[in-house]
């Protein structure tokens, strides 16, 4: 490691990603910045279309043909990944920054055995011989708690259940002992009891390998369960970020508050009346130029319409992008004022 221990492992600065098609463009990620520290568990939360997955893909430049990163920097270990030549980028992808996806069936190659696929990563990145790589692959499968790994290694992906496939994906991601593991909705396609197993496994492996994790999810429950820090995204922008405990206990942005209220309502915990106008999904804004959440926000003020909301630092690590918080202190749960 060349960087000092106290500087962030990954720095995303003003990242902007757009999609182009049919003469139109759509800004999926709108100049966002965040840091990831060594060994940290960061969650990125938001609804469909908030730009959370595109952010993850942009970090590794895994863009589909219609998408293009149009600005910003992604600094990893002192280098800007966005300007790295292809061969150098391939040394980072899968090796130092690994990624697992939502649907494990489509991310595994159906015509290769799971052993072949794990061995490939080891041979390419670790320059291992095939037999040593196979031994290592079995060990990895054991680490992710696949029963009878010596036998399973020769199975094809279709013989495994969804949970097992996700374990294989995790084993593959861990094969090169990455510094960062990015998990994009890794449990969304799984049943809750299997989800609990996989989250448990991820938490344990993260500590064991001392990796930093970026977990992309739409489920605030998972955020509370797993993460140290959370970034809340809406309409391609970060609206709030902070330590999970602080952010959920003293939500500062009306959107985060809405997500928490909905979750509490569904959990039968709260009966706080929800404001209906806040409920339409995000649409590309066209009638205003200010805050993305303007049309749904129950607390919007005149300034929100035409001005970008300012970044307000509430505590050292907790900050929010909202006009309403520029002067007022953060709210606690159930609307109580939160004094720090």
């Amino acid at each position: 490691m060349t960087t000092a221990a106290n500087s962030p492992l990954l720095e995303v600065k003003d990242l902007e990603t757009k999609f182009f098609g049919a003469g139109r463009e759509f800004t999926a990620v709108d100049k966002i910045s965040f840091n990831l520290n060594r060994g940290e568990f960061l969650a990125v939360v938001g609804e469909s279309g908030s730009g959370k997955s595109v952010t993850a893909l942009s970090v590794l430049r895994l863009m589909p043909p219609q998408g293009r990163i149009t600005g910003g920097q992604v600094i990893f270990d002192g280098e800007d990944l966005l300007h790295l030549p292809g061969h150098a980028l391939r040394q980072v992808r899968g090796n130092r920054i690994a990624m697992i996806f939502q649907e494990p069936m489509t991310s595994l190659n159906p015509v290769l055995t799971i052993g072949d696929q794990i061995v490939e990563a080891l041979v390419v990145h670790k320059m291992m011989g095939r037999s040593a790589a196979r031994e290592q692959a079995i060990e990895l499968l054991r680490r992710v708690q696949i029963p009878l790994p010596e036998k399973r290694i020769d199975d094809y992906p279709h013989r495994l259940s969804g949970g097992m496939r996700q374990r294989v994906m995790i084993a593959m991601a861990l094969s090169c002992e990455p510094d960062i593991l990015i998990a994009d909705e890794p449990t969304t396609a799984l049943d809750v009891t299997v989800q609990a197993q996989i989250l448990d496994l991820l938490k344990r492996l993260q500590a064991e390998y001392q990796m930093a994790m970026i977990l992309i999810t739409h489920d605030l429950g998972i955020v509370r369960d797993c993460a140290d820090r959370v970034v809340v995204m809406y309409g391609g922008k970060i609206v709030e970020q902070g330590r999970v405990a602080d952010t959920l206990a003293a939500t500062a942005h009306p959107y985060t508050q809405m997500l928490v209220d909905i979750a509490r309502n569904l959990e039968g915990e709260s009966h706080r009346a929800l404001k209906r106008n806040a409920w339409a999904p995000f649409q590309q804004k066209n009638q205003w130029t200010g805050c993305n959440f303007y049309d749904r926000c129950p607390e919007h003020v005149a300034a929100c319409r035409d001005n970008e909301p300012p970044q307000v630092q509430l505590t050292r690590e907790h900050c929010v992008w909202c006009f309403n918080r520029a002067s007022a202190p953060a709210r606690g749960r159930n609307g109580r004022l939160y004094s720090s």
Partner: protein
Amino acid sequence: MSKKSTTDGEDSLVEVVDLKKHYPLSRSLFFSAHADAVRAVDGVSFAITRGEVFGLVGESGCGKSTIGRLLVQLAAPSAGQIIFEGRDLDSMTTKDRDLVKKNLQIIFQDPYSSLNPRMRVGAIISEPMRINGGFSRAEIGKRVADLLDRVGLPHSCVDRFPHEFSGGQRQRIAIARSLALQPKLLVADECVSALDVSVKLQILELLDELTKAFAVTLLFISHDLAAVRYLCDRIAVLYLGVVVEVAGKDSFFRKPLHPYSQALLSAVPTVSEIALERIVLRGEVPSPIDPPSGCRFRTRCWKAASICAEKTPPLIDVGDGRLVACHFVDAAAMNEGGKRAEVKSASL
């Protein structure tokens, strides 16, 4: 298994008795030895009271969707009875059954594939009325407008196509269609699973409102315990084709009795500071082709003993309208048996 244990049959709208659905496997060269069928639903009995919202929960492959399809006659049961308003659907003539079918409607999970992309919304919603007949054009138009009002969509929608709508709006269209014939039983099969949380809550509220307004009984099938908790009055938990627990919503969420229910409930990550002791189950759901002997949950159960492999636990009444199929839960044990998973509210 006592078939009349859930209700006295008087006020039950639908009763299902020892329902089975086995999908035979085609015999290939490799499997000819013994595999015979996927036991998707393997002896399920329950009764749904008129006007209630009955939840069916369980993980993938437990047979919950199959039960929904059997109830609305989209599939024929291999064995067992479905009794609708006191009449056995199987013993009816086809003509009679067609009349009953009007009263059985379903909403599917994916609003992208359940609406015909080449039909306009007006035609989609009015199709059930046109097929069943008995409505004049004016009546149909009025009914469609009324249904659109009820589900919160503007009248201008009738001339538009499904692709012009978001997932939540499409689900509203599907709900309007399902209510067009004013059915008595509505089956909602994972109808909020494909939606974002904010939209999910809207659809749940809408269903809650409409089931009351239309006096329709709802069978709500979901793997999402939060949604079930929000909407349902009573809940049945399925595991590998059998019912393991039936309980009222409040008592179920306060104190699940079956070990599987406890694990299921504890596995859901929550935002609220309600902490259940997390029970992480070993292994995965076994294959429904060759389910474990005795209790089907025993391979993953931390309480499993030798009796579990030998005897299938019957679904017994433990009082308070609750039924549980576990050798270790009986009426006496109910008071302390569920304690382990009792909700502890942390101080705030």
